[in-house]
C-alpha cells in the first residue's frame, strides 16, 4: 500500500537523494557507465580495471554496496526508503552496485543473525568492501535435494575440527577465499548432527576440481576436504544448530534467486528484440500477431510476478514474519526467466543459437550461454519440485499419502 510521505520525511528523502547524486557525480567513473560488473563469485576470476577498483572502493567505504546492513559492521545503515533511492539514483546514472556475490546475497545476512560479535567484526566488513569472496559448501554427491543427508565430517579435536569429505557443485569454488559449509559433527542424528562451519579455501587439504557446464564454462567445482584443520572459532552458532542456520541462509538465497531483485532483469525487452529481429508494421507494432500475443502474455505474467514479489515483501514486513506467498516466488521467477530465454532464442531464430564466432554479436552469444546456464535456476537453491513440496506440505498442510 502506498502511503503519503510526511512533509519532513520528504525533505529528508530529498536531502538524501541530493547526497547520493553528489556521491555518484564525484565517484562514479564515466567510463563504467552502463557496464555492470559486480563481484560475484560465480562469474570468474576478477580482473578489475583501475576504474572498477576505484568505484568498488568508493561504494565499499560508504557501505552502500550493502545499503541496509548495520553501519557498525561496515554496512550503509540505510532504511528501505533510502536504499530504494540509492538504487534509483544508481540506475539513473547508468551506475551499478559493484559489491555482490554469495557473501552479500546469502552469507552476510545469515551471519548478522547468527554469528558471534567477533565473527561479525571479522567477516562482515570485508564483504561490505567487496574484498572477500565466499562460496557455498552445501551439496554433496549424495546430498542434493536431500541436503540433510550430507556426510562431510567435522571431527572435534579439542581446539579445532578436522574436516573430511566431499562437496560438489560448489559455485565459484575455484575463485573463492572462504567457504560457508554445513558439515556433520554427529552421526547419530540426521538434522541435529549438522553444524555450520567457515572454512578457508587456502587451508591445506582443500582441493577443487572445476566442472564444465553445458554452457561451456566452468563456474562450479567438486571440492574435496582431506584432514582440513578448521579452528573452533569458525563454528557459527552452536554445534548441531547448522541445519537451522543453513536453512535460514537458503531463504535468503531463494529470495535473491527468484529474479525479483532490482536489476534482476537487465537488457533489452522481448518486444525490443522482436522489433530488431523481426518485421514491424507501419505503426511500429509487430507484424507477427502470434508473437505479439505471446510477448504480451509473457509480460503480463512477468508484471504480476513483480507485483507478487512486492506484496510478499510488504506482507512479511506488516506481519513481522515471512509471508506465505514468499514460498512461491522462486519457482515463479525462475520459470519465467527460463521462458523468457527460450522466447529470445526463438525470436532470433538460428541467429539466436550461436555457440561462437564473430558472425554472432557478443549479446547474441551471451544470450545463448545465459539460456543454457539458466536451466540451473530451477535446480539449485532448492529445485522447483522441492519448492512445490514445501508449498504443499508446509503452507497448504497437504500430508504425505503414506
Amino acid at each position, binding site marked *: 500500500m502506498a502511503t503519503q510521505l510526511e512533509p519532513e520525511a520528504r525533505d529528508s528523502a530529498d536531502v538524501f537523494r541530493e547526497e547520493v547524486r553528489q556521491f555518484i557525480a564525484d565517484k562514479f567513473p564515466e567510463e563504467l557507465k552502463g557496464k555492470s560488473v559486480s563481484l560475484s563469485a560465480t562469474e570468474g576470476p576478477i580482473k578489475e580495471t583501475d576504474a572498477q577498483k576505484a568505484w568498488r572502493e568508493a561504494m565499499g567505504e560508504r557501505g552502500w554496496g550493502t545499503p541496509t546492513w548495520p553501519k557498525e559492521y561496515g554496512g550503509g545503515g540505510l532504511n528501505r526508503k533510502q536504499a530504494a533511492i540509492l538504487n534509483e539514483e544508481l540506475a539513473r546514472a547508468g551506475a551499478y552496485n559493484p559489491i555482490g556475490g554469495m557473501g552479500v546475497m546469502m552469507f552476510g545476512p545469515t551471519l548478522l543473525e547468527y554469528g558471534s560479535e567477533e565473527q561479525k567484526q571479522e567477516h562482515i566488513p570485508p564483504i561490505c568492501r567487496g574484498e572477500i569472496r565466499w562460496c557455498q559448501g552445501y551439496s554433496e554427491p549424495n546430498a542434493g535435494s536431500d541436503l540433510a543427508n550430507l556426510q562431510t565430517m567435522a571431527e572435534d579435536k579439542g581446539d579445532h575440527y578436522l574436516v573430511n569429505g566431499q562437496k560438489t557443485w560448489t559455485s565459484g569454488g575455484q575463485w573463492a577465499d572462504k567457504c560457508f559449509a554445513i558439515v556433520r559433527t554427529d552421526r547419530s542424528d540426521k538434522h541435529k548432527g549438522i553444524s555450520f562451519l567457515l572454512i578457508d579455501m587456502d587451508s591445506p587439504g582443500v582441493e577443487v576440481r572445476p566442472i564444465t557446464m553445458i554452457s561451456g564454462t566452468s563456474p562450479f567445482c567438486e571440492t574435496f576436504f582431506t584432514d582440513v584443520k578448521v579452528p573452533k572459532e569458525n563454528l557459527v552458532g552452536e554445534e548441531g544448530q547448522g541445519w537451522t542456520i543453513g536453512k535460514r541462509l537458503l531463504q535468503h538465497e531463494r529470495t535473491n534467486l527468484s529474479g525479483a531483485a532490482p536489476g534482476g532483469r537487465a537488457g533489452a525487452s522481448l518486444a525490443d528484440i522482436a522489433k530488431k529481429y523481426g518485421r514491424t508494421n507501419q505503426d511500429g507494432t509487430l507484424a507477427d500477431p502470434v508473437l505479439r500475443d505471446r510477448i504480451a502474455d509473457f509480460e503480463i505474467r512477468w508484471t504480476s510476478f513483480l507485483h507478487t514479489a512486492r506484496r510478499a515483501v510488504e506482507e512479511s514486513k506488516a506481519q513481522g514474519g515471512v509471508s506465505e506467498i514468499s514460498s512461491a516466488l522462486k519457482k515463479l521467477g525462475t520459470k519465467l526467466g527460463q521462458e523468457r530465454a527460450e522466447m529470445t532464442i526463438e525470436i532470433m531464430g538460428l541467429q539466436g543459437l550461436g*555457440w561462437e564466432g564473430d558472425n554472432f554479436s557478443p549479446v547474441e552469444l551471451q544470450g545463448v550461454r545465459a539460456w543454457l546456464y539458466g536451466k540451473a535456476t530451477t535446480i539449485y537453491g532448492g529445485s522447483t519440485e522441492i519448492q512445490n513440496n514445501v508449498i504443499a506440505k508446509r503452507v497448504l498442510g497437504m500430508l504425505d499419502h503414506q
Partner: protein
Amino acid sequence: MAVLNEEQEMLRDMAREWATNESPVTEFRKVRASGEPEAFDRDAYSAMAEMGWAGIIIPEEHGGSDFGFMSVGLVVEELGKTLTASPLIATTLAASAIMLGGSDEQKAKWLPKLASGEAIATLAIDEGPHHDPQAIEASVSGGKLTGTKAFVAEAHGADLFVVAAKDGLYLVEKGDGVTLTTRRLTDQRSHADIAFDGAAADKLANGGDDLLDKVLDRARVLTAAEMLGMAQIVFDTTLAYLKQRVQFNQVLSSFQALQHRMADLFADLAQMRSAVEAGLQAVDSGAGVSRAAIVAKAEANRVLHTMSNEGIQLHGGIGMTDEYDIGLYLKRARVLEAAWGTRSYLKNRFATLGGY
C-alpha cells in the same frame, strides 16, 4: 511403433546395433573436440554408405534399395539416439529433390554417387535465420545462380547443393562462385552461410511448381525422425536415472510427483512417435503428405522441446554438466526445432492448408 516388414526390422536392428557399438555419443564428442567445421567422421559415413543407408530411398536402377522413407526414418531415428553426426539426412533429402524434379540425365549423374556415399549433397533453401521459403531472393540468369543462403546444414562436407531460387530448385556443385562462411551453433555440427556468385546452376525442371514444397515436406519428416530418436533416448535415460538415484532414502522414481511427470512425457512421446511414423508413411504412400509432414514436425518440436528441458531438470545438477550427455541433446534440439519451421510457423501453415 509402426508395424514393420521384415526388411525394415532388419534394417532397424542393424542401425541400432551399429549406432550403439560403433557410433555412441563418445564418437560425436570426438567430432566436436576436433573442431573441424565439417563436423562428421568420413570413415563412419563410408561405413554407413556401405551398409546401403545413403541409398535407402534411391531407386534400384540408380544404385539404391528403394526401401522408402519409413525405412530411412528408422535408421535416422537410431542415429539420432546417439547424436551421430553425418550428412545422411542432408544427402537423402537432396536425393529426394533430384528424384522428384530431376531429368533422367541428372538422376543418372547424381543418384548413384549419392547412394554409394561417393558424393554428399544438401539442401540450401533459407536465406535468413528463420525458415521462410516465401522469402527467397536467389535468382538464376543464363544458368548462373546468385544469392546467399543462411545456416545451410552439412554445407562443409557437401559436394552438391540443391538450391532454392525464385523460379525453382537448382543443382549447384561446390566450386567456382560458391563461398562458405562457417556458422558455429550450439549443436556444434556443420552449418554455413553460402554466397553464390554466378555459380553454374542446373535446374531441376521436372518437378512442377510445388517441387520446393514437396522437398520441404520430406525435410520436415526426416528431421522429425532424428528428433524422435533424441526424445526417446532423453526419456529412457531420465527414467533409468530416476529409478537409480536415491534421495530421502528412496529412489526418486518412487515420488508421485515425478511419476506423473514421467507419465506425461510417456504420453507425449507416444504422440510424437505416431505423428512421425505417420509422416514417414505418408511420404511413402503419397497421400496427404504436406499435412502429415506438418503434424510430424510440429509434434516433434513440441515434445522434444519439453523432453529436453525436463531431461535436464529431472537429472538435477548432474544434468547441467558437459560430461553428462543430456545437455548435448538440448543443444541439438533447439537447432532442429528451428529447422524447416518452428511450431508457430507450422501451425500457421497447417491452418492455411486447412483453408482457415
